[in-house]
């Protein structure tokens, strides 16, 4: 059923359609609307049977999910940013224990400086945690990926994050086709846990494993994600059959046929990129897009196949490996290693910095001309940065950089909207 609906609300409805049995959450912007909506559904018994637990921290949220999942209940939580970092120990643990928990990450930057706006630093920091990570481009896809996520997680008995851009998607009202309960039930079987805590068949979960078997355990987790590379497209195909809609998969290209320049990106920015590419195509530029949906497992082959025919590519990413450059770009370069392709990394949108068509036009043109630095910071205010660097050269003791920059900019954040 088509609805004009807030992204968070749509995701909440999708989660509910998946019949989760335990939902636990701790509020953090911009994830709040999702769990608020779910809380109301449980409280009003629209979603039943389901336990909704207001926990005291994200660490507890993931821990409760670990417990409920281990006891055989379909378990869900949502978080973002600092919240994800606060639960990190449990995030790794859930993956290590092979618990098929589904978690929405409403992607948000990580402080300090504290910042509630969108980028991908949070979930990308968990790239090695053993969780799968799928990135939604639109709210429709966010809805669809959650439904696929439960199935994927439970088939592999591995946890999965569905990542959607904070505010940009979570708080956007747009048209979403919400499936019916029958459709979802026809796609997603009831949870049949691989193992569960049950007095009828006691097992000990969570052993201490020494050097003699630890590597094997880790390899098996890796092997599962390799299996996921096959399973994800399969589930997307099944999804299309059931819901009549293309959604999910590992990667998706756009106007890539004869593209000489490819733009690689994840999440909602793909929309703006596509609009920009459309405009450039109209102007005759041979440019295309590669959207990565599955960040973990990372589809090396698919990425390579999508890029191998272009001349150059730009990885436009909302994350920064401080001291190194791009995070996604590193993986993409790994995928095309040996091809001799020219690759650029563009860091953009950190902490919610707007990524505008205008900036992208400029970026893509420069890329086409291969004038870009290997790592480019899109719309960085060089004046401010250089001033601060200069100041630091003269006065070596550390100070509050963020404050100085705001001072230099002579503004407060609330005064700026454009």
């Amino acid at each position: 059923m088509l609805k004009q609906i807030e992204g968070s609300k749509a995701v909440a409805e999708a989660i509910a359609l998946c019949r989760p049995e335990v939902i636990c959450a701790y509020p953090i912007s911009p994830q709040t609307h999702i769990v608020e909506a779910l809380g109301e559904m449980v409280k009003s018994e629209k979603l039943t049977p389901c336990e909704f637990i207001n926990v005291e921290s994200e660490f507890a949220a993931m821990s409760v999910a670990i417990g409920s999942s281990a006891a055989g209940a379909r378990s869900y939580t949502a978080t973002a940013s600092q919240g994800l970092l606060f639960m990190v120990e449990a995030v790794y643990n859930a993956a290590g224990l092979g618990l098929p928990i589904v978690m929405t990450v409403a992607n948000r930057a990580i402080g300090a400086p504290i910042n509630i706006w969108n980028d991908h630093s949070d979930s990308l920091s968990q790239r090695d945690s053993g969780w799968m990570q799928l990135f939604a481009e639109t709210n429709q896809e966010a809805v669809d990926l959650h439904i696929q996520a439960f199935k994927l997680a439970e088939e592999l008995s591995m946890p999965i994050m569905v990542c959607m851009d904070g505010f940009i998607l979570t708080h956007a009202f747009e048209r979403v086709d919400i499936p019916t309960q029958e459709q979802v039930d026809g796609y997603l079987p009831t949870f049949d846990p691989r193992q569960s805590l049950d007095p009828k068949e006691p097992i000990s979960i969570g052993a201490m494993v020494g050097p003699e078997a630890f590597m094997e355990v880790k390899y098996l987790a890796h092997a599962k994600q390799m299996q996921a590379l096959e399973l994800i497209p399969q589930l997307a195909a099944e999804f299309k059959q059931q819901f009549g809609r293309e959604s999910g998969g590992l990667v998706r290209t756009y106007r890539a046929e004869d593209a000489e320049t490819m733009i690689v990106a994840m999440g909602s920015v793909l929309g703006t990129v596509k609009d920009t590419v459309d405009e450039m195509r109209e102007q005759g530029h041979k440019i295309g897009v590669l959207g990565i949906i599955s960040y973990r497992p990372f589809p090396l082959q698919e990425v390579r196949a999508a890029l191998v025919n272009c001349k150059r590519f730009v990885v436009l990413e909302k994350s920064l490996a401080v001291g190194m450059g791009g995070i996604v770009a590193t993986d993409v370069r790994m995928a095309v290693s040996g091809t001799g392709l020219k690759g650029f990394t563009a860091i953009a949108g950190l902490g919610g910095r707007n990524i505008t068509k205008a900036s992208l036009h400029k970026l893509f043109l420069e890329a086409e001309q291969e004038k870009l630095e290997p790592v480019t910071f899109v719309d960085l205010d060089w004046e401010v940065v250089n001033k601060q660097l200069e100041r630091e050269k003269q006065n070596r003791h550390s100070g509050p950089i963020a404050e100085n920059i705001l001072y230099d900019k002579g503004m407060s954040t609330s005064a700026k909207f454009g």
Partner: protein
Amino acid sequence: MANKPFAITLKPGTSLNNLTGSWRSERPVYLDRLPPCNNACPAGENIQGWLFHAESGDYEQAWRVLVQDNPLPAAMGRVCYHPCETACNRGQLDTSVGINSVERFLGDEAIKRGWKFDAPAATTGKKVLVVGAGPSGLSAAYHLARMGHQVEIQEAGPLAGGMMRFGIPKYRLPRDVLDAEVQRILDLGVTLKYDSKVANIQQSMKDGGFDAAFLAVGAHIGKRAMIPAGDASHIVDAVSVLRSMEGEDKPMLGRKVVVYGGGNTAIDVARSVKRMGGEPIIVYRRTRDKAPAHDFEIEEALQEGVMIKWLSTIKQAEVGEITVEKMELDEKGFPQPTGEFEKLEADSVVLALGQDVDLSLLEGVPGLEVKDGVVQVASNMMTGFAGIFAGGDMVPSERTVTVAVGHGKKAARHIDAWLRGESYEPAAKHEIAEYKNLNTWYYSDAHKTVRPMLDMIRRQTSFDEVQGGLDETNALFEARRCLSCGNCFECDNCYGVCPDNAVIKLGPGKGFEFKYDYCKGCGLCVEECPCGSIKMVPEDI
């Protein structure tokens, strides 16, 4: 488990594969230690053993265990001076267990319920003569009978019981109790001939065709002291006085009766005199703490109005009065005369200075050794003449009923062995269960139950039994005060406190076993065993 995640999910209980017993350098072992009460009992009773059954309320079983060693519990529960209680470890905790009172309860219960001894084993065809129906003779006869021997007791007097009857007043040992216990022995098939004084033991054995003899004639001759006395002065000995108490004619002692001596017999006489309406005065040459009588008996006598002159000796006895000299203790604690004299009214003087044995029946028996008026016996209770054994007051030892009963049992075992041409080797004694071996935390706080005492007027005017018995409830309570020193009473502590579940509980009455595959040798079971029946021993290297 094939479906389950590798390594991080495990099968339950599989740690059994890990034999932690290899960690151990010392191992716990169960052992029985000898409880101090058992060790102290002259009759060799397995006190802890019978208390164990009494604790669970199985009084008959308790009695049956008791009478394996002593056929006279009702008597013993009254007249024994209970060295067991003195030795009892509980005395160091609060007050010793009232073993004697429980024994009496069991003895009385047996009489009340008419419990009989188990029938004797198959007869051996051997005949044993027991001379004297006192505690030692009765005990020997009982044990021998149960071993299947044919036993005949020849008693010089008209009644059985020996000193239990002729030396101990009724108020301490009612005669119906004594009679009942004697009868039960006779019911085993023991023959008892009264008024049959054995004049020549060898002849008697030959006449009766006896294969062995046990002599237990007691010490019935009162010792005399050289007291200058007028012809008309009335001086008698304590044994005679007490013996005559049993007959129809009560002794004529007058009102003022001086009893000379400080032993239990002196007290018995004085208290009997009091009950007959006399005014007894005990004269003793030393002080109360040096008196051989048990202090509780002195105390009871004083309570009843018996006068005692300590540090006094009788110098002269005249009609109606005596002269005593005051004594004082020298540095070594011996009484020395002071030259101070005093006169006391005395219608009669009873000498309670000890007893001698009538050894006339042994005349002509070769190889016998008599020393200090008693017959010497070897460790097997046999005299110098093969086949003749002796015990009780006629051999060198402490003269108590309990010792006598013990002699009877011991002699019986040796006689039995001797009759088979063997020798009896008692099992080696276990190490003593000392207080330090116990973990007394685990015992409930409980003080000794005090037995009821007869009211004073009746104590002073009648021969009713002074000390009452326990009823079922408090006998049970008292039995349960037993710490079971050195002997497992199945408290399950070892089973419970083992952090490695390395103790197997075998079920009621069967105790426990260690699973040495898993025991790490921490020693908690030893430390927390209340009764000290586990110890650590080094592992063999």
